[in-house]
């Protein structure tokens, strides 16, 4: 489903952030990308999400290269993916409902469809009872659940998560992991970047380790 072929990325000449990355992810996979800070995990996700472009190499999605995709097509591709970031990226002065609805509103869905879908998704992450609350009133763990709900409300085929548990305590971390496993069970492919090797070992899913921009296992 997703292939990275000899992918290199540099932000400045002579300094490669990613070196010769070769990765193949199948539909329905749950793959951890691990490694210390600065290993290139975020950059790798950014390349898939087209926040950044590859310096060299190819990224194929369902056999089609997205490395040189026209900028106007990027939003349409992003709608088929979901992304969860460590700093949540929520609109703190808006309600839980409004934050999740944003992903559907940009597609021009009807209000009744948006309401139905958002409430359904919030039930999946156990937040439906807080749909009217401003996100700034929520705990970090709950805020991350809102971010996950926003990412999955469109039924993405691929969910990217960049250190989604970085600011969370162990209880919230396990809750979040359980939600990701639940989403994965529906068939959504998950790419989960974390520096927390202990978490990876506990969950027991496939993993790829990055160090200084290279895959080392």
């Amino acid at each position, binding site marked *: 489903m997703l292939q990275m072929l000899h992918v290199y990325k540099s932000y400045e000449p002579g300094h490669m952030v990613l070196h010769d990355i070769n990765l193949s992810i199948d539909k329905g996979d749950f793959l951890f990308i691990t490694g210390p800070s600065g290993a290139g995990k975020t950059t790798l996700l950014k390349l898939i999400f087209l926040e950044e472009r590859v310096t060299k190499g190819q990224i194929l999605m369902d056999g089609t290269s997205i490395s040189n995709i026209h900028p106007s097509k990027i*939003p349409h591709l992003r*709608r088929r993916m979901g992304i969860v970031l460590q700093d949540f990226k929520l609109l703190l002065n808006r309600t839980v409902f409004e934050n999740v609805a944003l992903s559907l509103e940009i597609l021009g869905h009807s209000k009744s469809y948006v309401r139905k879908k958002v409430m359904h998704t919030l039930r999946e992450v156990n937040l439906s009872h807080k749909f009217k609350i401003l996100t700034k009133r929520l705990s970090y763990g709950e805020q991350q659940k809102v971010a996950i709900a926003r990412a999955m409300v469109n039924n993405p085929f691929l969910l990217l998560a960049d250190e989604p548990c970085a600011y969370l305590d162990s209880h919230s971390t396990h809750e979040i992991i359980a939600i990701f496993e639940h989403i994965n069970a529906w068939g959504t492919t998950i790419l989960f970047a974390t520096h927390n090797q202990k978490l990876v070992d506990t969950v027991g899913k496939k993993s790829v380790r990055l160090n200084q921009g290279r895959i080392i296992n």
Partner: protein
Amino acid sequence: MIHLITTGSIAFSLAILGAVLCVFLNVDDLVKKWRKEVSIVLFLEDNLNPSKIENLKTKISEMLEVDNILYISKEEALKRLKTQLENQEGILEGLETNPLPASFEIRLKPPFQNIQSIRTLVQRLKGLSAIDEVQYGEAWIERLTTGFRLIKLVALAIFGLLFMSTVFIISNTIKLAIYARQEELEIMRVVGATNLFIKTPFYIEALLQGLVGALLAISILFGIYRLFVSKVQMDSSSISFLPSDVILGIMGVGIGLGLFGSLISFRRFIRT
């Protein structure tokens, strides 16, 4: 607050622009009225017989530039002079003969009420026989033309400066608005919003700010105009307010300023 600053900037610039236009259009009206008064006076040689005068009159009235021509006989000229002198008619008492020449007064058609056409016509009139002298207030017309050209240049320069400074202010205030909503824009990009979807609310906002700014400017100008007319106790027909097409134009410029300012801001601040 940012919206107020942007709308205020647009209103201020357009009010000054409108004021300049108002002055310019009124001066233009005045100049047009003066130009209508422009006449060429042809002084004729003495002792021309009536048929010669009639031939000359026909010839001149057939000229393309000539709107109408009036013959003033020596007697009529003296009568006019006496009327002009009013209580000083005594000055003329010692005269044994009428020293004033007969003349033609020529008025021009509107398209030819300019210095170039007048000069060309005067050259042709001077070439006619029986014409002693041609007078047309050359210095006065030239002063008028130069003055009007200067006013046009000043108005254009003010418009250019205001346009640039307003675009600069607007683009900066919109940049501030974009900065204030940078987080929201980034989130929208993350969830797959197209650039058009992100930009549209800003464009609509800019359009409304431009429109409100223009309406505000026109209202302020109208208020000042009414005040001016009442203070100097003038008939409002002698100084006119901006015509409706110019008001529509100002509204268009307001909207254009808003949109242009937001376009400039977005060019730098929205990545594709």
